[in-house]
């Protein structure tokens, strides 16, 4: 490749690197750390010891505030001790001020901080003990600020493969994996059957095929989140027409079960998914059907083959490449389902994507969330590998 040609590909490489490869790599890194955004001692990837300087300064300021207030009620003989303590705390905090992120900390630095905290803790205890009747405010610092200041020395949160070990013991993950697989298999199965029928119908030269094609594309063109919302109205326990019809047909015992029971939500999600993506499946299959030479069908019928035999002996084998591509993409799409279920039931049946999102964004646990998404990544890889094995190299032919 010449450098000029390389320039043509460069924007693609930059985008792919920034928004796909780098994040995947970063997720891999996260998965090795106990990285939780809602915990100040763990809200980044710390490879070495850190000092949470902002928190240290904030707590120190509280101590200074208490001492200022205490000076107002204290008798003059206590001034010397209070002033000395205030001055020492201020002097100690000075170099740590102005930081907005935890800073690196050497071993000697950690010892210095600990020694300082031991010192002021002893002096505050002494001060409080010397004037018991004053009810000094700084005594609150002994309970709250000093212990918190001790916690500002943060060790590395590298945990290696512990997150992955946790995954193997995580029943919720395996329950969600099962949910995801059931959802994927059942919806792709029905999409394939109905989509195939639809494609066969649309492949015939008949009146009205254009209408069928156009109408069947409507659900596909609507954003998933919006169509899921539509279905929530149809499934609603008191006012949803689909829930009511299903109840009257005897499919469910009472209408609210569709959105409030484990089986009901699974069925609800599958129906909504099949409704939305079957047309897409049908179009992919139709494209495959249209390249099959019609002469083959004529010879088959001359040879006296029935429609079933024609389908299994001619249509299916020739359709195999498009069929497998369509199945592969639909399977992977269904496997990572998020917005449909997130909107339809706020997350039930819980799939792996929902779980991962809740852990990462909801609970702020980026470390374990990364472990879950990487496990998903592995599953996706296995599924793709399975299909490619069947497909051979056809997909990659250039």
């Amino acid at each position: 490749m010449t450098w000029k040609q390389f320039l043509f590909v460069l924007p693609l490489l930059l985008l792919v690197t920034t928004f796909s490869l780098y994040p995947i790599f970063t997720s891999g890194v996260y998965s090795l750390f106990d990285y939780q955004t809602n915990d100040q001692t763990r809200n980044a990837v710390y490879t070495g010891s850190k000092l949470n300087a902002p928190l240290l300064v904030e707590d120190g300021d509280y101590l200074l505030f208490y001492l200022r207030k205490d000076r107002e009620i204290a008798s003059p003989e206590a001034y010397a001790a209070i002033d000395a303590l205030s001055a020492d705390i201020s002097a100690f905090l000075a170099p740590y001020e102005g930081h907005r992120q935890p800073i690196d900390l050497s071993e000697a630095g950690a010892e210095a901080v600990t020694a300082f905290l031991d010192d002021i803790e002893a002096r505050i205890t002494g001060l409080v003990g010397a004037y018991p009747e004053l009810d000094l405010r700084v005594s609150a610092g002994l309970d709250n600020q000093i212990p918190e200041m001790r916690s500002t020395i943060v060790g590395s949160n590298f945990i290696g493969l512990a997150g992955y070990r946790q995954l193997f013991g995580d029943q919720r993950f395996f329950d969600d994996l099962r949910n995801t697989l059931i959802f994927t298999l059942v919806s792709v199965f029905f999409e394939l059957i109905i989509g195939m029928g639809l494609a066969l119908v649309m492949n015939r030269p008949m009146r009205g095929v254009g209408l069928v094609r156009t109408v069947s594309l409507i659900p596909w063109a609507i954003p998933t989140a919006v169509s899921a919302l539509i279905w929530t109205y149809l499934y609603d326990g008191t006012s949803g027409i689909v829930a009511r019809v299903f109840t009257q047909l005897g499919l469910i015992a009472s209408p609210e079960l569709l959105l409030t029971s484990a089986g009901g939500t699974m069925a609800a999600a599958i129906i909504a998914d099949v409704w939305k993506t079957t047309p897409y499946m049908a179009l992919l299959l139709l494209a495959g059907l249209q390249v099959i030479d019609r002469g083959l069908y004529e010879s088959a019928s001359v040879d006296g083959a029935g429609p079933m035999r024609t389908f299994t002996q001619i249509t299916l084998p020739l359709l195999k490449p498009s069929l497998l591509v369509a199945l592969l993409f639909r399977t992977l799409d269904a496997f990572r389902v998020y917005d449909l279920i997130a909107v339809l039931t706020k997350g039930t049946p819980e799939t792996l994507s929902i779980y991962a999102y809740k852990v990462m964004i909801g609970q702020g646990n980026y470390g374990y969330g990364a472990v879950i998404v990487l496990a998903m990544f592995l599953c996706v890889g296995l599924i793709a590998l399975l299909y490619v094995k069947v497909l051979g190299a056809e997909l990659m032919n250039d």
Partner: protein
Amino acid sequence: MTSLATTKKTTPSRERLNPLIWLVIALFLFVMVFPFLWILITSFKPGAEIYGRDTAFRLIAVNPTIDNYTTVINKGILDAVKNSVIVSLITTLYVVFVASMSAYIIARFSFRGKRMLMGLILGISMFPQMIIIGPVFNMFYNLKMLNSYWVTMAYSTITLPSAVWIMIAHFKRIPLSVEEAARIDGCSQWQALWIVIFPMAAPGVFTTAIMTFIAAWNEYLLTLTLNSDKAYHTVPVAINALRTQFTILWGEITAATVLGRGTSGMVVDAASGRRIWSHREDVPMRAASLVKLATALAALDVLGADHTVRTRVDRGATTRQIVLVGRGDALLTTAALGRLATATTRDLRNRGVTRVEVLVDDSLFPAPSPAPGWLKSYHPHEVAPVRPLIVDQHEVMDTALDAGQVFAAAMKARGIGVTSVRRGVRPRGAATIAGVESPPVLDWVERMLLRSDNDIAETLARLTAIDVGYPATWEGVNRMQATVLARYGITGMTLYDGSGLSRSDRVTARAVVTLLRTVRARRALRPVLSALPLAGRTGTLTAARGRFDTRPSSCAAGRVRAKSGALRDTVSLAGTAATVEGDDSLFVFVVAGQPSTLTVRRAVDGLAATVVGCW
């Protein structure tokens, strides 16, 4: 199907289908279109009809209206449409541009690593988007690109691979000779691409553009995560923020936890007040300490946040008598009594008095009696008999005499002899020697709500009753609460005390939610919310007490502020939750009829986590 082969021979262009297939096709089309038709019909129904038991299934609205459309437009859906168009257009333009350039090279030239590049592109189109969410969020956060149209760059991960793939296929169909001719005429590669190839591949370019546009138009996850600000919401995200109802999976939650049938609750959106979920919301329940919310509201409303009371020392009937007059300072401390003693001592010394008798006047409240519905076992450790004088919150049977003793000890320490301490009433018109001011009512409210302090609650309720003009009795408290709550339109609370210890107190979930909305909407009352314990962090909800410290509810730690309540057979929780979507919800849950164990409390915490949306 039977006619497939035979008819094809005779009429190759058009065929007649048998009616069964037509029926199947018609049914299929109906199923495809029905949801839209039904939503269209529903969109003209007023809200009452949409959710009405009979009207919900009518084909034609009884009172058709276009209010729903004006509402949606007023709520800014047009801004969302604008955002969607902008975001989808930007994405389409740059993706088509970038995809064309690389597809041209890949389609036209062979080079080392080409198969790898294609495999990479294909791989990216398959992987779960969820994997990039965390790192991309951090990247956007660090670069300050959250809540902006930069989100379109992240869209490349879902649109670019398939765009490149389609473009390659289309570029390959253009004969090489065309390009060669162009090159001979002196075109550079750049010109050959844009002047010759690109226009010739127009159908492919259009396909790619449409696919990309639709993918960007449909995108939900990235916008939800990266652009939480409503100003940048696209249609799919905005429309879901508008929804009027969602289902909390009651069946799932109850099955997973130990909550039983005696559970009631309500969840509403804080800003709009629309109901998100409710269950038995009008059934009066014991709600334990949730009653303190009403006490806090009444105190802030009637007394005001700055109100203080003054504990005094008055002269007695003789020079050798002084009277410690309790005015209901529930936060009185030994240190404050010490200051009072210092001032009193100075006065007595000036008059040459060295020995006194201390009378304790607690007649502001009548002689204490248990409230209706209180158990004997409550005294004195759950709550002390209610007197207007208590020091350091010593929970003893006679807090007034206890305070008198502490005061006497302080006097003795300052060199004044105390002959006796007994209950008495200050003489009419007696002069005041000294006084100490209580902390402001705001402090009381904060402390009461944070620790669920029963003594403060009862004292505060009585002081409020007196201020409204009722006696400082249980009946007075009852009437005061009825009066104040009625003023804010809060019905459904029947209260017999200020702390919620009474087993006769009844509140409905709806009443609690109405109360929460009331205090949220008024600046003067808002401390009722801000003083609530923070889940997993402060007061009665600290992790040390087993609250919000275990999965699944630990995810709600720091996101919920709530008043907890517990009697031996009742567990309740009410407050505000910052949801994952960025809105605030108000909620109340009451579980009755089960021994109030930590397990039940944790289950209720789980419900709060469900409201947050992180469970």
